């Protein structure tokens, strides 16, 4: 008797649970199912870029048989973690993924990405800027298409520069150092750096350093930071800036304090990628009209050397499903190669990686940014800022290579660079410690390490 009642309760609980299950299934029909009910091929794109979802409408109008779902699964490192999880579980990986240039070699050497040269991307060399094409063209294959780029430029607060008596924009690093002293005298810092690996890469790249290399078969990796004279050159310069307290080492980039500093002029310039304008507009709105853009200072008077900072590509995850990879390639082409697709994204604030846009009159003659409400904002005081940034893109030095485990390398950089927080440590020591860790890590991962 008693047992009978208990079994009834159990059966009832089971029934309720099952009913929940059915309801749940009805609700979660989407996801990464192979192809939709209406015969459409559905492709899943992982991207945190806010401009990519804008292209979906235009693409779907042209390709009614394909449905694109863009999902933000987390920004940069978080997405890579999710991607690694999905790849190791063999389930749930997207068809296309936004991968920054620095992380691309990692996935390419692991053989996770589709080589696009077979699909028709091999002839695109002249379409993209040399810096970005170089970043996706690895060991003879094309492992992604450039989505945006970030040639370095000097963004500066003209009002603070004028107040400090820096009327000529510094064009060499010596002039930048002199400017830093004058700006310090009026109570601001010329810039901030609390140990950012991406910044280190960009600055040594600009100096002409090539500390990292990977062999063609992907088995041997060269890590030579301490032996590279150009790394040393930047290192000594930056150490001098830290020693004389000319840069703010306390404020980490992208923090609220950092935005405050950019907003109120206590951080007076930025050496950063060409995608910065829209970040300035939303992060430091009060400084509108005060900022200007110039080419990066160089080591020799009259030099033009430049490098990239940030920038992302769109890569295809390897799949055996032919119809999916064809559909995915179509979207990839639309977002990164088709003029209309690129325009949609550039209008949304992306900095282009293709020469056509960089040369176009409409782009070059822009004097204002569109704010969140769609209103024009002359953030750079009416300057034709894209002329400067477009030139900066042309000046990028080719041939710089990232490590095949750059995500890891960047993750530990800050821990090694105690020079930013402690007077007793130097950048030299930090870089040596970083190098040692990277070499050990490379060995653990099965690479042959060359110095």
């Amino acid at each position: 008797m008693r047992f009978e009642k208990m079994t009834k309760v159990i059966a009832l609980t089971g029934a309720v649970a099952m009913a929940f299950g059915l309801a749940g299934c009805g609700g979660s029909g989407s996801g990464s199912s192979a192809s939709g009910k209406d015969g459409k091929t559905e492709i899943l794109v992982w991207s945190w870029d806010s401009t990519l979802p804008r292209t979906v409408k235009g693409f779907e109008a042209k390709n009614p048989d394909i449905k694109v779902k863009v999902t933000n699964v987390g920004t940069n490192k978080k997405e890579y973690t999710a991607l690694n999880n999905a790849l190791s579980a063999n389930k749930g990986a997207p068809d296309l993924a936004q991968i920054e240039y620095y992380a691309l070699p990692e996935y390419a050497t692991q053989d996770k990405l589709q080589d696009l040269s077979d699909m028709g991307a091999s002839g695109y060399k002249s379409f993209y800027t040399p810096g970005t094409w170089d970043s996706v063209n690895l060991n003879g294959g094309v492992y992604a298409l450039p989505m945006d780029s970030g040639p370095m430029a000097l963004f500066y607060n003209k009002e603070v520069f004028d107040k400090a008596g820096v009327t000529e924009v510094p064009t060499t690093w010596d002039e930048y150092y002199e400017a830093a002293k004058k700006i310090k005298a009026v109570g601001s810092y010329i810039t901030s750096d609390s140990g950012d690996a991406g910044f280190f890469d960009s600055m040594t790249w600009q100096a002409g350093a090539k500390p990292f290399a990977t062999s063609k078969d992907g088995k041997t990796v060269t890590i030579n930071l301490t032996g590279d004279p150009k790394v040393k050159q930047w290192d000594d310069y930056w150490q001098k800036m830290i020693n004389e307290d000319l840069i703010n080492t306390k404020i980490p980039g992208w923090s609220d304090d950092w935005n405050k500093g950019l907003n109120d002029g206590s951080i007076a310039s930025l050496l950063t990628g060409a995608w910065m304008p829209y970040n300035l507009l939303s992060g430091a709105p009060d400084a509108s009209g005060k900022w200007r853009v110039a080419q990066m200072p160089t080591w020799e008077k009259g030099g033009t050397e430049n490098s990239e900072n940030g920038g992302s590509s769109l890569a295809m995850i390897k799949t055996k499903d032919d119809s999916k990879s064809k559909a995915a390639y179509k979207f990839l082409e639309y977002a990164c190669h088709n003029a209309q697709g690129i325009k949609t994204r550039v209008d949304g604030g992306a900095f282009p990686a293709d020469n056509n846009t960089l040369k176009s009159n409409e782009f070059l003659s822009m004097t204002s940014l569109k704010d969140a409400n769609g209103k024009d904002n002359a953030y750079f005081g009416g300057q034709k800022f894209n002329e400067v940034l477009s030139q900066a893109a042309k000046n990028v030095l080719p041939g710089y290579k990232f490590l095949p485990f750059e995500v890891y390398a960047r993750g530990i950089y800050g821990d090694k660079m105690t020079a930013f927080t402690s007077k007793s440590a130097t950048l030299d020591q930090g870089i040596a410690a970083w190098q040692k860790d990277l070499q050990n890590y490379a060995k653990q991962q099965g690479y042959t390490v060359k110095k």
Partner: protein
Amino acid sequence: MSVLDAEGRRVRAAERARARRVAADERAERRRAASSGFSNPSNPRRSVWLTLACGVFAVYCLFPFAYLLVNATKTQADFTSTFGLGPGRSFALWDNIREVFSYQDGIFARWLANTLMYVVVGAGGATLLAVMGGYALAKFRFPGRKAVFAVVLGAISVPGIALAVPQFLLFAKLGLTNTPWAMIVPSLISPFGLYLMWIFSDQAVPGELLEAARVDGASEWRTFRTISLPLLAPGIVTCALFTIVATWNNYFLPLIMLKDADWYPLTIGLNQWKDQASTAGGQAIQNLVITGSLITIIPLVIAFLLLQKYWQSGLAAGAVKE
């Protein structure tokens, strides 16, 4: 003016006078105790240092909340340009709330609904399972009880984060990642809740009561429902509160399991908004992140205020002479 009004006023005035007398008495008593150096249990001597330490701790605890309240009233421009604990140039709380619910096609409301669902189904289910399991373990003797005890104690000591990745691989095999089930099913198991209910049932439900019920011919189910459940109420509320807070604040599990923004809980969604400011060309929306955070904690505060009277109410433990 009616007679009743006048009467009421007189009663209230008398009541106030009485309260004043009592307060004065207490003050005098405290002064006496302080000057004589003696105190009694109901009027202990106060320690200046302890009071001070408690005050510092209270400030430390309430500071982030005050920061949240102040900054939720600022526009994005004011957030970056005005003092953190001072007011902004304009009062933008209502605009912020409106924008939180309309940004990105109103996805915040969806996240809120998801979180509520995870709490109702996940934490509710966890509480139900913990109550039934804990009660059974405390009140029935069956083989394997000791083993269950060991497993439960062991499970409490394993941090959930350590299990998240194996759980992910398991759920991926089952095809459950990226569905609400990936969030709900792991939330259903609360070793701590089970342990709590076990201990509580042991103390709060006298065996004699169950015996009496059995003698009277009640089924086990009926005994549980009509006799034990009311006695367990304070424990159930405590257990529910723990599981609600754990589910509401869960971050790592959904971070790993869910990749579809439509199923995100608030924690993941807000973090995504926060990260947006640090992406190339991304729009900084700290004002929305702050306001969203404030909205996120309000349901928890309400849950605490509503439930606290239940777990404060007296227990039946020891009500029966043994």
